């Protein structure tokens, strides 16, 4: 991992477009998912997705190869989201609340009986709906933890908050999603 980070850092300092192409390919889904979880809107997430990579190109020399590239990338994306929100209204991620727009589209899951699939799909829809009602900080912590598989320390570094805050956001986020699992909060 350290060697890979060093190579990425070297390429970013050179502003190597081929390296950036490869990185965009590799992180496309993860970055978009993260941005969607923060913004809750696909179009905005897509705009910020592009801006993030432009920022990576421009500020690539700031990447420290002691850390994983993904962690730095998410931190860059997060700062862009905050900048965007500040332009709209002075806020941190607190401002990223829901506007009722469907951000998470849940397709059918495969390889199960029709009943199970329907049930699973329903549950996923409930959770997706629940996610939209969570504060952005909780959504962020949950996505980074359970989608990206980041360690608590990595999440703390992306979100620039103490470890204890990350723990409590995950706990509160999951607890808040619990009623949605059964569709009780719908």
């Amino acid at each position, binding site marked *: 991992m350290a060697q890979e980070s060093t190579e990425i850092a070297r390429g970013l300092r050179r*502003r190597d*477009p081929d390296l950036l*192409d490869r990185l965009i390919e590799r992180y496309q*889904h993860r970055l978009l998912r993260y941005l969607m979880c923060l913004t809750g809107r696909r179009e905005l997430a897509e705009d910020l997705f592009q801006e993030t990579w432009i920022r990576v190109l421009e500020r690539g020399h700031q990447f420290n190869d002691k850390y994983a590239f993904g962690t730095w990338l998410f931190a860059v994306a997060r700062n862009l989201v905050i900048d965007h929100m500040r332009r709209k209204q002075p806020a941190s991620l607190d401002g990223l609340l829901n506007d009722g727009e469907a951000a998470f589209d849940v397709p059918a899951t495969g390889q199960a009986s029709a009943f199970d699939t329907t049930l699973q799909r329903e549950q996923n829809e409930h959770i*997706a709906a629940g996610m939209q009602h969570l504060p952005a900080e909780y959504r962020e912590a949950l*996505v980074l933890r359970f989608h990206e598989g980041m360690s608590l320390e990595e999440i703390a570094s992306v979100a620039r908050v103490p470890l204890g805050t990350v*723990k409590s956001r*995950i*706990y509160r986020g999951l*607890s808040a999603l619990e009623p949605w699992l059964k569709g009780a909060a719908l």
Partner: protein
Amino acid sequence: MNTDAHERARKLIALAGSQELSPADRISDQPSSNAWLAAHLETCASCRAFAENVGETIRGLRAIPIAAERSLVSTTQMRVRRRALELQRQRERRWLVSVSCTAVTLCALLSTVALWRGFEWLGTRARLASSVWQVGFLVFCVMPALLVGILLLAKDKHLADHTGSYTG
């Protein structure tokens, strides 16, 4: 069993969520916490239900697929390449400007020294007092700037006369 115990158990369960909650002995880094949680889960039905729900929720979260479309990726790659080219051109231009500035500064220094020597030689040949040729040198150096200034002022006056923007 007090509320704190449930709270503690639920926090441990939530934080261990990425490990799918299967073996209780992997739930925390601290073996004492793991053992305590395992024991707690055996006796507490509500926390067991919470653990199951957390597992379901995490599976549900992971099942939310958000994929970037091909067009987004290719547009981004194109924009990044274009910006990289712009930055490279900017860097080249900056390099060119700095080289030109250095060259101009060097030329100015060399020509000033050469001119000074030239005026000194002329002054000596013409048996002038050193202050005289030094003033001559100063006037010669300042002359281009003075001429340009006068020309610009004349141009402004000319424009003002024709547009009538100045009333005074």
